[in-house]
Structures are given as structure tokens and as C-alpha cells.
């Protein structure tokens, strides 16, 4: 991967993805070999939106590489609440840290941040836009279970606002993957993502229910349908109920179906699925560590190489 930042999944080629996932495999096989590799460097965690697992997993991944972390803390207690622009915030933080992980409620925030700083920026979620580091760990999970070619993937739930969906769907176009999108009419993929899929000539099909397509799937990626997306609460309950799965639903699935979820789940995957061989969502969450270690290692290596080139000049 020759990138300075990780902003969207559209910037990732197959080679980029495989390079990070190969490294993640090495990290998982021998974490000791990577311990302390980036000692003396600092990572800033800038979360303008609440986050538990993404923040903690970047924090843990960094520390395992010997990177110290500084955390902006809650937005309420930072200068953002005084009206500071994002551009100013990241320019200040650039002076404190060697790389920045950014989550922000506005689409395009990470793109903007990357324009204002020279240190690597990792987009950890920008509104309903993208969440590419989640995609790398999703792909790692799929690869370890099925490989990444000759694959049939079903993505179900909130496809309109789900940033993990947008990044995953785009990244899968690098591989020989058939994609099925299962959602209510009102939460279908947005025009921006369709545009990217169309550009690559990806094979996609859309469905309003899971039943017909379930027997074909290698992977079922479930996302949460959020109550606040519906003006009417009754409508939410009616719709959300149609996109829940339990152990009975999965009776019709192939034996080797992998069920994934970016978490947190509420009730879209019943607890009885956890005990089936299909459930991989906790494994998926744990993969956040080796994959984010591999990603940080790669970006910091690229940054160091770029700095070396400048010195040579």
C-alpha cells in the first residue's frame, strides 16, 4: 500500500488490501515480532462521535506496536464545543502526534482533515460515508473463512446510512464477489455508492427479503436498522422485524455460511445464533487488533519512507 492516508475504500486496490491483510496475518501469527516496532511515536484519537470498540481497538493496536496514544476526549469537553473548525483542530493536533484517527458526524470530514495535515489520517467513520478500517477487518474475517474470490455475499439492513456497508460493498468490487443487498425500500444503497459499484461493473442484486437468496450465500453481513431513521415508530418496528435473524432463519442457510456484524447489535441477530457455527461477529471484532496493527504499521512505514525521500533531496 503506497497510501499516505486511509480515507475511503474506493482508494484501495486489490494489492493494497491484500498487502494489509497479509501483514495482519503475520501479526496474528506472531504478535511479538511487531511489539514495540513504532516505539517513541504518538497516535491521536479524535472521536467527534461516541465510539467504544473502534476507539479501544485503535488504542490497543497502537499500544501493541509501542505507539503512545493521546485521546481528544468527549466533544463536549473539547474546544470543538467552543466552535473551533475541524481544519483548525487537526492542524493543532498534527503538532502533537505522528498520525490521527478521526471519527466525525459529517460526511467528507476525513477528506477535509487530510487536506490540512501532513501526518497520516485514518477515517474511523464519517457520518453516513465510509469506515474503511472496519472494511479491512471485515475482509480479513471473510478471507480467513472463505477466501476472497468466487464469493457470494449478502449485505442486509440499513444500506442507506450504514457506512460499514458503503466501504465493504466498494472494496468487494476488487474481488470476484457477487453482492446481494437486502433491505427495505427506504434504506436501499445511496446513489453515491451505486455510482462506484456501477463504475466497476460489479455484479449486484437487490432484494426486499432474505429468504430467496439465503441458500446461495457464503457470507451474510447484518447491520442494525436504527429507530431514528424512521419518522414513525410503528413503521420502524414493522420494518426492523423483517430483517432480524435467529437460529431458525439459518436452518435454510448453507452449512458453511459465515454471519458477520460490525457490532454493536441490538436485536437484529438473536442470541441463539451465537451458539451456531455460523456466528463470526466476535471473531470479526477481535480481528480489529491485528488488522489495525497492520494498517498503522503500513501507514507509518509509508510516512517514514516519504520523510526519508524528502531528506535525501
Amino acid at each position, binding site marked *: 500500500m503506497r497510501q499516505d492516508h486511509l480515507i*475511503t475504500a474506493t482508494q484501495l486496490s486489490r494489492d493494497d488490501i491484500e498487502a494489509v491483510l497479509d501483514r495482519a496475518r503475520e501479526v496474528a501469527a506472531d504478535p511479538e515480532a511487531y511489539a514495540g516496532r513504532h516505539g517513541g511515536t504518538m497516535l491521536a484519537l479524535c472521536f467527534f462521535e461516541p465510539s467504544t470498540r473502534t476507539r479501544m481497538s485503535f488504542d490497543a493496536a497502537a499500544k501493541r506496536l509501542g505507539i503512545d496514544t493521546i485521546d481528544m476526549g468527549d466533544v463536549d469537553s473539547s474546544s470543538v464545543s467552543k*466552535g473551533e*473548525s*475541524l*481544519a483548525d483542530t487537526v492542524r493543532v493536533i498534527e503538532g502533537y502526534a505522528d498520525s490521527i484517527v478521526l471519527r*466525525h*458526524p*459529517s*460526511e*467528507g*470530514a476525513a*477528506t*477535509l482533515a487530510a*487536506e490540512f495535515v501532513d501526518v497520516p489520517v485514518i477515517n474511523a467513520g*464519517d*457520518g*453516513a*460515508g465510509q469506515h474503511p478500517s472496519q472494511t479491512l477487518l471485515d475482509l480479513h474475517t471473510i478471507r480467513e473463512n472463505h477466501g476472497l474470490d468466487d464469493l457470494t455475499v449478502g449485505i442486509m439492513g440499513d444500506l442507506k446510512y450504514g457506512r460499514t456497508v458503503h466501504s465493504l460493498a466498494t472494496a468487494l468490487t476488487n474481488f470476484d464477489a457477487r453482492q446481494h443487498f437486502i433491505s427495505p425500500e427506504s434504506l436501499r444503497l445511496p*446513489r*453515491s*455508492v451505486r*455510482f*462506484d459499484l456501477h463504475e466497476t461493473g460489479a455484479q449486484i442484486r437487490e432484494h426486499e427479503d432474505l429468504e430467496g437468496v439465503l441458500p446461495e450465500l457464503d457470507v451474510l453481513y447484518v447491520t442494525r436498522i436504527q429507530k431514528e431513521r424512521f419518522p414513525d415508530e410503528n413503521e420502524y418496528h414493522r420494518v426492523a422485524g423483517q430483517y432480524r435473524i435467529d437460529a431458525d432463519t439459518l436452518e435454510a442457510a448453507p452449512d458453511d455460511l459465515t454471519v458477520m456484524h460490525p457490532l454493536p447489535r441490538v436485536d437484529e441477530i438473536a442470541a441463539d445464533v451465537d451458539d451456531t457455527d455460523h456466528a463470526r461477529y466476535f471473531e470479526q471484532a477481535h480481528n480489529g487488533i491485528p488488522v489495525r496493527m497492520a494498517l498503522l504499521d503500513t501507514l507509518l512505514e509509508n510516512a517514514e519512507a516519504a520523510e526519508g525521500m524528502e531528506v535525501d533531496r
Partner: protein
Amino acid sequence: MSEHELRVSKIRDGTVIDHVEGGQALNVLAILGIDGSEGLGVSVGMNVPSDRLGRKDLVKVEGRELSQSEVDVLSLIAPEATINIVREFEVVEKNRVTRPDRVAGVLSCPNRNCITNADEPVETRFEVVADGVRCDYCSTVLRSDIAEHIDV
């Protein structure tokens, strides 16, 4: 076509935008930010016969020359347009519009949640794609509704 048929007079200094697709003249004025209140002399011909387009619109603006960014956006809604710059009743420049790769600072992003609509020190930037434009920041695609988001 004779001047008589067009029913619009020559201008002394300014811009004549010719070969605009029929029905787009008012959007051209919107791009130029002209609504009459600025006192410029403006003549508009709509759906006049044209050999090249069948029917065309035509806009003459007295006392105003177009900037490159205005021409760039104009190309999105009037790809066949010709821009004539007039000084002392003479056409001193005659240009066809060309579609740029990007347009910066002239359209607002229709996605209210786009970072360019927050109070940030950046101007909007859109990539020109096959049938519209696409926000460089949030990837929102704008097609037929481009004229509604002109912000010059």
C-alpha cells in the same frame, strides 16, 4: 437568423451566451447570479429557432464578462454554448465551453451533512462525471438538479 427575428439588440460591452439548450436561459442567469436587482442590462431569448439545436436560448448581459469558474459551471447545463465577449459592439473573443475535470467554489453540496456545509475554511469541489458532478468530499452525485445548487 436575422437580428430582427431575435428581437434583441446589440450590446456595447458584455457577454453574449449563445447556443444554450432551449429552456436553460434562466438557469444560465442563476449561474451568473443575475436576478435583475443588480441593474445590469439583460436580454433573454428563449426557444428561438437554431440550425444547430433546433431551438435554442440566448442570453446577453450588458457590462459583465464571465469568469472561468462561471464558464465551467455553465458547461454543465449548456454544453453546446458559445461565449462571446463584446467590447465596443465588437465580438473580441468567441469561445465554446469545455467540460472541466472539476469545478471548485461554484456549487454547494446538496448533502446537508457534508463537511463543506459546516463552517470550515474550504470551498466546495466537484468532479465532473459522465452525467453530472460528484462532491469530492462526501461523494454525493448531482445530476439534473445542478442549477439548483449554484452558489456564486
